[in-house]
């Protein structure tokens, strides 16, 4: 089995209304239970917004602490899920469902190496 990272990219700006978010959360809950019941779930969680990020940069043996995300952009990493899947097609099938549930673009990326099924 391989592991894949499903990253959810969220646009900067206002979040959608609570009803919309509740529907998204409900769909994500269903997806998670399905991933768990098929032994495909590894880990996943939403992230606080990028303004809460802190960056550490090595510089001449010291480490510089700065406020803010590593890169500023129109989209940011809103959360991610790590799944186990036999191949890319299986991972893309899960990714497709995340895209439909969240209404967000999803990046599917393989981890190096293999894991036990």
């Amino acid at each position: 089995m391989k592991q894949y990272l499903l990253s959810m990219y969220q646009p900067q700006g206002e979040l959608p209304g609570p009803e919309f978010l509740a529907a998204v959360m409900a769909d994500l809950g269903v997806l998670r239970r399905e991933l768990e019941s098929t032994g495909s779930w590894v880990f996943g969680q939403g992230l606080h917004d990028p303004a809460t990020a802190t960056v550490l940069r090595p510089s001449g043996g010291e480490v510089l602490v700065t406020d803010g995300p590593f890169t500023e952009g129109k989209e940011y990493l809103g959360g991610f899920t790590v799944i186990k899947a036999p191949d890319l097609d299986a991972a893309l099938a899960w990714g497709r469902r995340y895209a439909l549930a969240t209404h967000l673009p999803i990046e599917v990326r393989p981890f190096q190496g293999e894991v036990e099924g």
Partner: protein
Amino acid sequence: MTSVPVTATEIERVFRQEYGRAVAVLVRLVGDLDSAEEAVQEAFTTAVRQWPSTGLPPSPAGWIITTARNKAIDRQRREALRPGRHADALLLHTRDEPAEEGPVRDDRLRLIFTCCHPALAETAQVALTLRLLGGLTTAEIARAFLVSEPAMAQRIVRAKAKIRDARIPYRIPADADLPERLRPVLAVVYLVFNEGYLSGSGAAPVREQLCAEAVRLARLLAELMPDEPEVLGLLALLLLVQSRRPARTAPDGTLVLLADQDRSRWDAALVAEGQALVRRCLRLGRPGPYQLQAAINAVHSDAPSAAATDWGQIVQLYDRQMALAPTPVVALHRAVAVAETDGPQAALALVDALDLDAYHLTHAVRADLLRRLGRDAEAARAYREALTRTTNEAERAFLERRLRELS
């Protein structure tokens, strides 16, 4: 064993014909594209050395596959570092006879779907398909697409790495996914053909090779998926367009328009084959864009002269294409047909309503309609607009000639 004398050209021919088949089988056996290619190339190197003295084996494809498989086993025994499961898979299969048609067919189909996986960029799909199924060298592909050889090599290496690292499966898609997965496969074959047929740059032999390769791939797809109407439609389309190649350029290399072509020079065998395929598509009753384009070309092929063309039927076929997938390019071609049924004035109104300014053909079509309406000054302006938008030498020569004829 026979002892037919074997020439380098003969081996070259076997290579072209059997490379894809051999790589496809080897990928299944060794589970990795690079090792499969290396083994098949080694087998051909051995063939070049042995066949001139031993003669052509009874089944060259079988010989190449068996030899490549043995090379791969040797290599895997030498390289103890290889993951054991690959070696095991290989040994499991060694007792099978490789040249059975069934599994080999499936292997080639698997390989096509892997090369044209939607997770790969289209440029990479094209390069991989030509490389792995067509047996074209990286240098040949680079020349055909006007890319430097190192850039093309890198494109292929990256695509292979993605297949391996992201684990793009070596598998024929499930029926439910087939329509979606077939689309990029057909697009790749169509693109390869167009690159050969329309591209203004690149040496003529390279372009002819691309057309031939596209037709060969389309034939293979039609053989492997005989019930997919769009597959048959694509093959029919390529055959019908290809049939006009002998009449398409004048001795001085300039382009000859369909209306002005010497129809006796069309390849009658290709026309007959293309038209038979179009009829087969019609019977399947599941029309699609490639089938409709093929049907339009079949109407042209039916006409003994340009004046005898059934333009009414062509407009109807464009209408169906617009209903299926309305694009400005299809609308432009439809307008050209409307000019024949309803006159240039009606067609000009359609062209002027299109939002397709960047496309050189829009201006070339406008220019021709204006010319036919006797509006020469406007026609000249439109020819000049078209000229600023194309680098294709044959098309430029044609447009410049028309422009000269106006003044």
